[in-house]
């Protein structure tokens, strides 16, 4: 078996997750936040596939496929919400959405 080892994949996943988290915390555009969230989710998927590959058990890959499908559904809902926000506010700035504050 050739190619990078488990540590490399985990490192990749960690970097993806950190970039995603950074994006979520710093970007103010709703679309950018959603893209960052996707990055974090896929970091988890990379982990699943990596563990599956090196652990010798295929269930991790199956779970990753399910997770992808679920992520697609989640993105659809998220984008629909963003479209609604954009229509009603003509603006995608996240800090403007404060109506729910206590």
């Amino acid at each position, binding site marked *: 078996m050739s190619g990078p080892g488990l540590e490399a994949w985990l490192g990749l996943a960690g970097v993806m997750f950190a970039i995603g988290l950074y994006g*979520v915390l710093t970007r103010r555009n709703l679309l950018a936040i959603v893209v960052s969230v996707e990055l974090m989710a896929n970091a988890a998927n990379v982990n699943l596939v990596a563990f599956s590959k090196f652990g010798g058990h295929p269930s991790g890959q199956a779970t990753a496929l399910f997770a992808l499908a679920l992520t697609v559904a989640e993105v659809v809902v998220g984008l629909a919400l963003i479209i609604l926000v954009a229509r009603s506010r003509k603006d995608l700035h996240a800090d403007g959405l404060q109506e*729910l*504050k206590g």
Partner: protein
Amino acid sequence: MTPLLLAAVPVVLPFACFLLLGVVWPLRHTGRPAALLSSLVAVVSFLAALFAWEGAPGAGEPALTLTQAWLVHEGVPLAEVGLRLDAVSASMLVVVTFVAACVQVYSLGYMADEPRPALGRYYAWHSLFVVAMSGLVLAPNLLQLLAAWELVGLCSYLLIGYYWTRPSAGKAAVKAVWVTRFADIGLMSGVVLLYAQTGSFDWSAEASPWVAALLFCGVMGKSAQVPLHVWLPDAMEGPTPVSALLHAATMVAAGVYLVVRAWPIFAAAPDVLLVMAWVGGVTAVVAAVTATVQTDIKKVLAYSTCSQLGYMVAGLGSGEMLGGYFHLTTHAFFKALLFLAAGSIIHAVHSNELKDMGGLWSRTRFTGALFILGSLALAGLPGLAGFFSKDLILEELFHAGLYGPLALCLVAAALTPFYMARVVCMAFFGRPSPGAEHAHESPSVMLAPMMLLAVPAVVAGYGGYTFALSLGLDYHFALTPVGIAATALGLGGIAVGVARYGFGRLEGIDLPGVARFVRSGPMDAAWTAGWRSVFLPVAGVVGWVDRYVVDGLVNLFGWGALVLGDGLRGLQTGRVRDYLYAVAVGAVVLAAWGVVGGAS
């Protein structure tokens, strides 16, 4: 049918009738069918009670019981509820159902002019009363008796306030509740103390004299003993048949019945018995004196009832159960008769006031004869019912060496015929008042129950031996000096009363000092003063504690929650990024904790 099932009839059947009248409003609103149904049920209940009495176990035999465990906790019931038929309850059940049946049939005539829905309401409550009173009589322990006791109190309240459009009736109903409720503080404490001491609600339980003392407080309220008798005269605001049933024959006697029922508890408390003898004696005299100057015929009878209840309590105070219980039964008959006859007069002249009567003898001869018969039975004329039972009480007091209460009872024995002679003279003889000119005899539906009641009013005294035997007691009538003295005093009272009131001079001849004093209402004034000077300040303190300490604590928690929420609401900025920061930081903290925790 077994006696026990028959004894269940006066509980079950009127209850079904009550539910029917209460739920099926067309039946209640039509009035007359409801009245007939209720009366029929009462008559059937009486017949069932009579047969149950025949088959009831005698003295020494175990009581027949039909009970159901109630509030079972870990296999141990708190108490039993159900029926207990023995010699004591069987005879009382007969008295109660007999008077109830007579009164309900009588009411068919007396209340005939009432609006239909009101009549239905009246009979619904009458049915409920029969249930409650039968439940009280047949109670297997003090707990059920207490429940039934409250239920008859409720019926009393409802029926006193029957003419609810009259403010005075409403006030009288509330007063009856307040006064008896005040006394019931003692009764309830007694029941709780009994349970605390013996772990059961049975009468035969070994209990301290305090239980008897507390129970007697309740008796004083229900059976209208001085100074808690003030509600009974006011209760005459109710319809006259109600006064006959509840406030003369049965409900007010519930207190006396309680003492008879719980006799093992009372017999073990000689100090309480002594107090009872004195309270009863004082009640007998005070109420009798008050009765001599009343201008309202029902008030005379009400005070007379107080006085006779005092007799019963004094008799029980002598340490012998028989006299008081015997007098309860005979008194129920002749006092119910007197009230029904008085109702018949009131029906004829449309007034309670004695000054609106007079000369009724020639117009209402049946009623007059029955009223005079009842008066003589009450006065203790030798041969009639009241004579034997009253004599027995006096004998018991004499043998117990209670000469003080005995003297008081003898005074009352002289006053009773006096005020009854006064009423008879003022109502039936002398010059007729304008209202009495057109008086007419009552319909036979009213006269028949009175005649039925007149039978035991005459002969019940001769049942004393059988009655005593059924209770396992011994009784032989013997004319002793005490009895002769009482009879002489009674005849003297009649003579003085007739001499004073029998010759048409009716205005201003009541004992002047007594009249002025009694009519100023000293007892009510004393209660009002006590209410102002004691009850209100105490209630004020309790109210303050409730408002500022108890409620204050509750309000403190509410206030604390508000302040806390106010402080925490600053965390909720509404900005998504802030929340995400919180999530991220939380995740990092959890991860760090996991690493550190994993290391340790």
